[in-house]
């Protein structure tokens, strides 16, 4: 665990930067502006064409995976401090980073299977 701590920190800060720069606009457009009818939803065909481009898929993989690792790292310490459950360290570590790994694998598999 100690050997990969620098890597986990790197993933935390990369994910934090990606989430800070790109999540507000994606969340605002997809989650609020389009469902509320403020903006017209982009058509399925145009989005699917966009998705077929390899650069889009790499972008989406980074956009999903890195923030998940950001969450895993930060939430791990939130649990320690907030709930005072330091004695459950091993379980929390497995749950947090494990969830991020599963999410990354799912994203990679889904993006790989784009026809």
């Amino acid at each position: 665990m100690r050997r990969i701590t620098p890597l986990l920190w790197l993933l935390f800060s990369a994910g934090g930067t990606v989430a800070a720069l790109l999540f507000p606009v994606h969340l605002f457009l997809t989650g609020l502006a389009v469902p509320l009818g403020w903006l017209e939803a982009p058509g399925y065909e145009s989005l699917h064409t966009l998705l077929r481009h390899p650069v889009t898929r790499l972008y989406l993989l980074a956009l999903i995976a890195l923030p998940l690792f950001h969450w895993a790292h930060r939430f791990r310490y939130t649990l320690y401090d907030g709930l005072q459950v330091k004695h459950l360290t091993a379980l929390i570590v497995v749950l947090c980073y494990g969830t991020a790994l599963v999410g990354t694998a799912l994203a990679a598999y889904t993006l790989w299977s784009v026809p």
Partner: protein
Amino acid sequence: MSPQAEGRPIDPHYTLYHPRWYRRRVSVWWWLQNRAYAGFVLRELTSVFVAFFAVILLWQVRALVQGPEAYARFLVRLGTPLFLGLHGLAFLFVLFHAVTWFNLAPAAMAVRVSGRRVPDWVIVGLNYGAWLVLSGAVAVILLRG
């Protein structure tokens, strides 16, 4: 066997048990007593909403891959009050994450140009500038349709 039974004198300073140090039990809500603590914990909690939206993005990609009907169902689901409420709350937390992240950037990386440290406001400004440019680019690409 107890000391008395053995006939040994009882040492008043000796105890079989390790003393229990006095420790006040801290409430799980310790962070609500002070604005700075509350800000800290709210910032830590932004990660939950970051993860939530990463899952939404994954769901959106899955729906796109599965076909037009699945994507239409995804759009209908996003229009329900539950998801609108979640996204409204998540948007506030994600904004809080972005602002606190950019404002802490100079502390996280001290950039030096020809031996002199780049002033904090330059680094913060560059972060906000990049935020603006990237948000505009994403909006144009996504909505061009």
